[in-house]
């Protein structure tokens, strides 16, 4: 009896509210997916037709066959991978130094990496555009990738420092006693141990770069245009073609949502670790 009452209480006080919040959190996404598989005729109906009269992938087909969207997807992939590579290649050594050495200026430099992560994008984007134009990097992969390092480097350093700190220094010392040089210690002992953290950081940078819009819009042209910018241009071009737009939205959002779900547990742990301490 009391068990049933507590089950009912849990349903009313917890499960139903959670369900409502989940509906709020997922409904816009679900609505976009549903819209993308409806035939065009359904989309112009008012009152709205909620269930599709038939499921169709014609919008996806049109998007891939008639527009530049597949090239844009490829561009986004190149840019996001480049951002991960540049971000990690520079951040791993830096984070190692912050974690393993005590040197003059350490605190100040590490703090500045935190501060620059907070700078308004509008503050950076205007001079970056002028700089990239001078360097001839407008509308090149390298230009957009370098632009994305404004957030990928500070973020990766902060994530990775906490992962490096989690590895006991005794391991470094043991390796040194065994005759390993510093670089060997890093390569053979430390890197394998922070691999999970490295992968999490890489995926987060990948998602952020894939999702990014303002830098990409300022620094790319037709040649390297990523999907976010392309979709925004479609919004201007095909105002009433919601089937096409939502299909594009789904193709952009699904890969990152899946990636995010895969790493979310570890990512959340990494992101909140510092904050919980403070």
């Amino acid at each position, binding site marked *: 009896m009391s068990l049933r009452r507590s089950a009912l209480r849990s349903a009313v006080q917890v499960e139903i509210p959670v369900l409502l919040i989940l509906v709020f959190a997922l409904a816009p996404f679900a609505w976009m997916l549903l819209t993308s598989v409806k035939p065009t005729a359904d989309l112009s109906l008012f009152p709205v037709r909620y269930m599709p009269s038939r499921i169709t992938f014609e919008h996806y087909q049109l998007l891939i066959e008639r527009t530049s969207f597949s090239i844009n997807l490829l561009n986004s992939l190149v840019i996001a991978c480049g951002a991960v590579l540049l971000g990690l290649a*520079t951040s791993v050594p830096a984070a190692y130094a912050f974690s393993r050495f005590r040197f003059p200026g350490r605190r100040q*430099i590490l703090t500045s*990496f935190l501060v620059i992560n907070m700078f308004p994008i509008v503050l950076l984007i205007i001079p970056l555009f002028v700089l990239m134009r001078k360097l001839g990097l407008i509308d090149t992969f390298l230009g957009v990738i*370098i632009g994305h390092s404004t957030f990928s480097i500070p973020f990766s350093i902060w994530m990775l420092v906490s992962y490096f700190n989690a590895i006991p220094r005794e391991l470094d010392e043991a390796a040194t006693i065994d005759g390993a040089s510093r670089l060997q210690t890093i390569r053979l002992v430390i890197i394998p141990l922070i691999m999970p953290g490295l992968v999490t950081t890489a995926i987060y940078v990948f998602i952020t770069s894939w999702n990014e819009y303002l830098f990409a819009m300022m620094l790319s042209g037709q040649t390297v245009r990523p999907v976010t910018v392309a979709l925004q241009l479609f919004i201007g071009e095909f105002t009433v073609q919601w089937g096409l737009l939502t299909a594009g939205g789904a193709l952009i959002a699904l890969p990152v949502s899946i990636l*995010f779900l895969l790493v979310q547990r570890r990512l959340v742990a990494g992101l909140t670790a510092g904050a919980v301490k*403070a």
Partner: protein
Amino acid sequence: MAPPPPGTAVQMNQAAIRTLTPYGFLVPALLVTALVILYPVAQTVLFSLQDYLLYAPDDARFVGFRNFSMALKDEVFWISLKHSAVWVGGIVFAQLSLGLVTALLLNQSFWWRGIARALVIIPWALPSVIIGLMWTWIFDFNTGVLNDLLIRIGLISQPYAWLASPQSALACVMLALVWQGFPFFAVMILAGLQTVPKELYEAAEIDGASEFRQFIHVTAPAIAGIVATAVLLRIIWVANSLDVILVMTGGGPGYTTHTLPLYAFLRAYSGMEFGYAATLALMLTILLLAIVWLYVRQQAKDLDA
């Protein structure tokens, strides 16, 4: 190999190498950062003192603080600043409230808690362009689902132009941002809740404390630090964010959805007035510095741990 005798050039070199090693590890990150952050910031300060136009860069003249006094006399600057205050205050407050409720609920035990915790974060992972697109479609005047639902339940009798009406446009864009950001608060606060020892609640229960009093005396103090950190982070992030507005309304109708970063961006992008836009961006940064400082002070506490 025998160590070199003390005081020789070789040993001095080794000492120098040891001192310089950490900086060597930092060089790549510092170089790129100097290129994409330090140089642009310095450049922005320079631009803000010039009447730099993108299409006529060679005609740029040094104008001192004229851009700043121009901004203070610019009606749109004040409108944007006011909207920014409403934008930041409203969004962060709503995200915090909804996030707190979500976290408290997801900290209870029920059998599908794991799935609920994973799914609730999804809005946070989505690109702002998609968020803008989804919500524009929901708010659509002709065939939007919001109008349809409200008509069905009898709250309105005619479709309403949510994004095209000056009275509702800003609130609608704000709703989209609340939606995107509340999972962040939920996740942060949930992490804080999980650090509270269960014994504290058991002790409070034995002492006869009601659930409300348990929240005030046990939960609230335990999560105060993390909530403060999350609020500071979100204020900075929300104050800077402009892409969802750009996609949903482009700042319109009129100036009703102009915020300070969006106004700066539009002056740079559409007006190509980089000097004036740099000034606006700089003013935004200065306004945010106090909050950044608070946040950094809090985070730097355990740097030396």
